């Protein structure tokens, strides 16, 4: 289990992670989403022991991670731009990880190498971006970590490989109870994979919710009227997060389930009404808009 208490990390005058507290249960997959510079990558580096916190604490299974070699042995971090030496190959890098990570599985390594179409003895530095990601995934999953931290892992992977990655991660979570934290801007992929989503903006945790519950919290509703009712506050009593009007048609983002708002909308006698859940991306845009991070404001 990962426990984060009042974690703060600053770079000169910029506060990348600001008094963040959260807990992650073992065997869960957490998606970190947020604005650029929101603190996702910094949080992953703090979690993997690359950075030391300015204040607050991170414990993994009760142990602090920074400068703790034993605790780091059960974690693996795949950064957004992994480093490889000019002559590094998958085999050559595996020879290092084999010695360093106590859970390294030769069988898993062989099986992963057969799944991904990359040469074990090819120089990683000469591979395409997607293939370098695949190399990183092979090496990461072969260490059989209890905790896997991945930054923008879907970046550069083709749809088939993305699917394969998701399948492998889910398998490994089911098999060994691995805990995964993925930071990504690819919310579509996270939607399929994560059972929990955390939203970070300016180093602050804005939202921490179960993914299904989050999706269930918001509805995208389209309401059309033959004639707009002449009432003071048209959607009074409904938790409308966002409204966009086009003539007699209203597109609403509503917080809550159908049972909460449908009777009120139907009472307005619309000619057409439809409601459907929001995608993670739409929730992200909607939530960020509340905090002033909105494309209209940016423009």
């Amino acid at each position, binding site marked *: 289990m990962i426990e984060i208490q009042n974690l703060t990390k600053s*770079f000169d005058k910029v506060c990348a992670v600001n008094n963040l507290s959260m807990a992650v249960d073992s065997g869960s997959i957490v998606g970190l989403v947020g604005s650029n510079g929101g603190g996702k990558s910094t949080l992953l*580096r703090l979690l*993997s*022991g*690359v*950075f*030391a916190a300015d204040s607050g604490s991170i414990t993994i299974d009760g142990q602090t991670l920074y*400068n*703790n*070699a*034993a*605790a*780091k*042995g059960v*974690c*693996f*971090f795949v*950064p957004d*731009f*992994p*480093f490889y*030496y000019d*002559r*590094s190959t998958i085999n*050559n890098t595996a*020879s*290092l990880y084999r*010695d*360093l*990570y106590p859970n390294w599985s030769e069988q898993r390594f062989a099986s992963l190498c057969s799944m991904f179409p990359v040469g074990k003895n090819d120089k990683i530095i000469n591979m395409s971006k997607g293939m370098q990601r695949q190399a990183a995934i092979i090496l990461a999953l072969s260490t059989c970590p209890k905790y896997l931290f991945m930054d923008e892992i879907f970046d550069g992977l083709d749809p088939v490989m993305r699917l394969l990655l998701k399948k492998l991660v889910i398998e490994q979570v089911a098999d060994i109870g691995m805990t995964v934290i993925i930071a990504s801007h690819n919310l579509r992929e996270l939607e399929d994979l994560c059972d929990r989503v955390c939203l970070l903006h300016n180093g602050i945790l804005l939202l921490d919710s179960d993914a299904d519950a989050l999706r269930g919290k918001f509805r995208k509703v389209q309401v059309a009227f033959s004639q707009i009712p002449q009432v003071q506050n048209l959607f009074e009593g409904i938790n409308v997060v966002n409204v966009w009007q086009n003539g007699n048609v209203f597109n609403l983002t509503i917080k809550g389930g159908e049972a909460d708002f449908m009777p009120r909308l139907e009472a307005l006698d619309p000619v057409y009404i439809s409601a459907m859940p929001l995608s993670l991306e739409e929730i992200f845009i909607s939530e960020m808009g509340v905090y002033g991070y909105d494309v209209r404001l940016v423009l």
Partner: protein
Amino acid sequence: MTSDSSFKANLKNAFSVFKWEMKNRVASLAVYGILLATLTAIALTLCLSFAVNLGTEEAFPRSALIFQIASSYCVFLLTIAFTIIFTAGNYSYLHNKRKVDMYGSLPVSSTLLYLSKTASAFLFSIIPALFFFGFISTVSLVLGQPLVNETIELYVHIIIGTAACVAFYGLLAVCCGTTIHTVISFFAISISYPIALNFIKSVVNAFYNGIPNIITKDNFIINALNPVRAYSGSNVIYWILFSAACVVFSAVLAKKRRSDRAQNSFANFLPAYAVKLILSFICGMGLGVLFGSLNVMLNGMLGFVFGFLLGSVTAYIIVHLIFYKNFDGLIKTSIPFAAMAAVTLAAVFVCNIDILGFNEYVPPADSVETAGIVYPKDIIGTVKTVPQIASECSDDFSDAETVKEIIAIHQKTIDEFKRSAQKKFSNVWYNLFLEDFDDFIGSDSYCIGYKLKNGTEVIRHYRFNMLNYFAEADSGNYYASENILKEMINKIVESEQYTKNYFSIECISQDMLRSFTLETFNYAGNYGGKIILAENEKVSAEKAKEDCRKLYDALKKDNANFKKRDNGDINLKLSVSYDVENADKGSGLLSVVTDSIRNEDLERIFFTEDSVNTIEVLKSLELIDSEGELNTDSPYFISNQKSKR
């Protein structure tokens, strides 16, 4: 997991990283090895071809010597070059964000990771060199030129130099955020620190006339932060301690280092301050001393203050911009600079006004117990520092008249300096650049020493060149002044007591003796050769040594009864060859080269008709005949043709 087993696991992981580093460096090591092998092969091929072409018996050992020296120095220089490359590459894991992500997340503690990186940088540099030095020694042994000790000595210099450079670079690498800052800091400190120390030394020497130079150019204080000097092989203990201290300090800092400082300015600002302060100090001193010596603002001290501030502030701002890329923090980080500037200006001011009256102090005659004056060039057979020489000479004369004469010389010297006292700043340049050159060409200087009745010792060391320089301002009495002083000194130097005290044979112990050489003065009537009292084809080493001892004892006896007089009818010239005690002969192989050029240290021995014991021994050993001429039948006699080497 217990802390003990955890440490073992950690150590094992650090070793795994070390092994992996080795594997990743195979290509660079191969380039290094191939270059070394090729250079060694070229040297061997050329030397063997010369030997075969010459076809003489001596050709092979001589070629082997050349091979050994040439290839050893190729390995030496190439190792230094590769050490720089390996070390900079090795510590880049602290300076590259992507490498920080990789190494930072590995299950190895930052301290052990740092130590494994240090070990790999060190071993990368010295192991290939060890292999090639072994090869060179083996080839030389086979070819009959076994200078194994000299080769080992050179290899030890590589180990010490590499350890010092790697450790110091490692310390800077932990403190700096980028490789370029580390490299700049390494070279800036290594080069500018000795210059800064030399400026301090030169100011003290220039402002305090006659102060004996305690800090020589090889002194470890001058080179304390210049680890490249560790390759010279001097001050070995200091460099071992320096390396160990750097590694320990770096390991502690590595543990506390903020890894997010990679590709940023500094993780620890110590090198930034050091470089900024040292460079601004030397730039300030350079311009200050220049303005001071040009007497700008019509006052040397005012000129110095203006020049120092102008030079140091400019250098400080430029270095700040190089390190920080903007003016942020310039004022905030200027407190140490302001302190350095204030201390420097205050120190130079205090030196300038000579607050303790050092420059004009001459002990009153009634307070002096004994005194002495000596030309340091007269001290042979051993390497002594000027303060040692001055201190030892203070016992030489106790008679009131000579003491008065020495005091008069001292007073005359001070008067010479006083005549152009405003030129102190010009003299800094002399001390900075020309002092070593003066020593090299053997310019004259003299030491004065006093033992006072209250037990205090007063010592001074003056150079004629400095006096000449000052006297130039009053060109009217340039020569007169110098000649008067020299005459006063020579009166004592040519005295019986002085000649006796500094007689060459008194300075050389029997163990240092190599040989005596006897020649005729009058070349028109010579016999076409000379006598060298040393082992040769006809005389065994034991016999030659015994004969040398007899002559040595006789010379000492005669010196005890020495009376000053001319050579008279003696037509013989006696010289002694000896080993110099405590001499720093540089690196082993280099000393072999210089030795073969220099051959030996020869000293002429004063020899008169009063030297009865000496003449008797020369006759008893049948080195001279009854007429006092060289005995051409002596087994020690070498004809001119044979003696040509």
